[in-house]
């Protein structure tokens, strides 16, 4: 892609849309920085996989989606679900294991879901969200709506059978699913070259007869445009699309992993491509962002994050016995019929 093109004032995106993308990327980075701080302070438990560096991919993607479209996400899903519409405060409440969290404290960082806005689940199992998204797309077609389903997953997931089976099914069925591979060049400690002999994912997807392209995942506008095209295709009944977004995580696999396997120079090089810095530069160049507004955005986000933490801290701690609920719709965990629900059976 030539530089001039990228820097040209976009005619397909308004100032408001671009500023919203910028703000969302900042919010995600702020959210994860804050989560890391309280994780390290011992207030948040479990695992914390940060997507710092990758924000442009989910923000670009979800900017092209509607509220009623579906996404499936991964263990590294904070950015994906925040982009789709999750609120900071309820995310924090979940990370704190509180009743106001999206999953009442039962899921935690890796399992955030909000069915009211199409977030049908982050996932602790690598690749398992991919066929689920294909199923959501099948359901869209069967129900005759014009929704689309997006599956976010990492480069590492492409080595799993689920990935290949899902692509094959989507191709066969021509369902409205968009595969968005966030290729951050690592699957835990393993560089991309250890996952695949030939790192060309576009060709792989094309071999299933799925239209595919690779985009610069450090360029939110490029991601948006690519997904926008895919969404058009999906909504008009032209089937699946595969998008590889090349990106990078600026941190280790999870908080606590020093990332010893990521060469320093490589990290340096990718930090220079930071998508947030890039969009800031562009917005200023286009006259869409002043230093003053930029500072205001930062201040607002800081306040939102601090409020979110306060909300989480003051949210009710679940009753321990709550662990026994939500196993089944019709029965309790011992198999006894639940009154209200079993009437519908």
């Amino acid at each position, binding site marked *: 892609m030539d530089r001039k093109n990228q820097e040209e004032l976009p005619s397909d995106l308004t100032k408001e849309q671009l500023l919203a993308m910028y703000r969302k990327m900042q919010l995600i980075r702020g959210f994860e920085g804050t989560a890391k701080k309280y994780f390290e302070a011992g207030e948040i438990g479990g695992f914390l996989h940060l997507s710092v560096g990758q924000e442009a991919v989910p923000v670009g993607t979800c900017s092209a989606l509607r509220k009623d479209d579906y996404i499936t996400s991964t263990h590294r899903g904070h950015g994906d679900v925040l982009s789709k519409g999750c609120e900071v405060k309820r995310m924090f409440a979940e990370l704190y*294991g509180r009743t106001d969290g999206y999953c009442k*404290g039962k899921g935690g960082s*890796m*399992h955030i879901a909000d069915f009211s806005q199409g977030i049908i689940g982050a996932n602790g199992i690598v690749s398992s969200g991919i066929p689920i998204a294909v199923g959501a797309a099948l359901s869209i077609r069967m129900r005759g709506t014009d929704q689309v389903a997006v599956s976010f997953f990492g480069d590492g997931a492409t*080595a799993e*059978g689920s990935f290949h089976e899902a692509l094959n099914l989507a191709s066969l069925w021509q369902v409205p699913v968009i595969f968005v591979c966030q290729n951050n060049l690592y699957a*835990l400690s393993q560089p991309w070259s250890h*996952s695949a002999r030939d790192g060309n994912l576009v060709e792989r997807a094309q071999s299933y007869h799925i239209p595919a392209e690779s985009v610069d995942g450090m360029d939110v506008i490029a991601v948006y445009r690519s997904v926008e095209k895919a969404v058009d295709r999906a909504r008009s009944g032209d089937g699946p699309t595969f998008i590889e977004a090349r990106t990078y995580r600026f941190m280790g696999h999870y908080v606590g992993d020093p990332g010893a396997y990521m060469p320093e120079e490589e990290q340096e090089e990718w930090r220079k491509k930071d998508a947030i810095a890039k969009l800031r530069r562009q917005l200023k160049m286009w006259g869409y962002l002043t230093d003053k507004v930029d500072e205001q955005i930062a201040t607002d986000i800081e306040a939102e994050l601090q409020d979110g933490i306060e909300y989480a801290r003051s949210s009710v701690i679940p009753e*321990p016995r709550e*662990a026994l609920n939500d196993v089944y719709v019709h029965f309790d965990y011992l198999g006894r019929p639940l009154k209200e629900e079993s009437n519908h059976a």
Partner: protein
Amino acid sequence: MREITYREALKEALIEEMKRDERVFLLGEDIADPFGSAYKVTLGLSSIFGTDRVIQTPISEQGFTGAAVGAALTGMRPVVEFMYIDFTTMAMEQLVNQAAKIRYMSGGQAKVPVVFRTQGGPGRSSAAQHAQSIEALFHHIPGLLVAMPSSAYDAKGLLKTAIRLDDPVIFIEQKLLYNTKGEVPEEEYTIPFGVADVKRNGTDCTVVATSMTVLKALKAADILAEEGISIEVVDPRTLFPLDIETIVESVKKTSRLLITHEAPERGGFAAEVAAQVANLAFDYLDAPIQRVCAPSVPIPFARNMEDYIMIDESKIADRVRKLIRGDI
């Protein structure tokens, strides 16, 4: 005697067996240096043995499990690592329909000498897909052996045996045990499969415990001892083959049996032990057999909910008191 961690004990077993037999090799995700596996059991091994024998795989559980089976059928002795027992489900077909059955289906021609090492158990807010105890799934499958060491000593001795056996072994470690220390001799030793270990002698109640719950049962024994109640803690060490004789001998002495594990109660290993003891020692029992197991629910994320479903010494001690009082 020197003390080393459970993790170090496992690593020593791997190193010794890889030196002893060049057919032994490791296969799994992120097991090579510098990362050296999620729980660091294989840290340093790729530097000693090279990446030809410490083979790091892509995230392809079904693929590498099948590959291990294929290599085992043709003269090699793979030791596979599943980062979490939860991920064995990705490879269930190869484990259940292939590894477990090929010897039988081939009329005894084939041997499948593979060890599938993995780790399970709650305790770190790892939530529903990273903290399960699904040993019962494997215990149920004819053709698989299942080991669950609770101490550094058992971990080393059982892993060495597992590697030398010609049958497929599901070898289940526990994430909270890796840092626990125990006495392990410098000299070489192995522990046979199917031999339980009485971790503590007692007279009033037999407590059969596995993996992490052995430690909890031993703590309960200390608490109860102060109240004048003496429990015998039996660790079967291998769920299959099961040393039922040692358990029955103990029950004949104590007349009471409690079985505890971290896995959900329904359809768990405890049910098998209970059924066998009811059959073999019914006349010796003074009270109904008790299970102290997790409620049959997924593992919740929030720490307090996770604590609620986990087995601790007080849950075991409370139930033993009730048993002794005849309060059941």
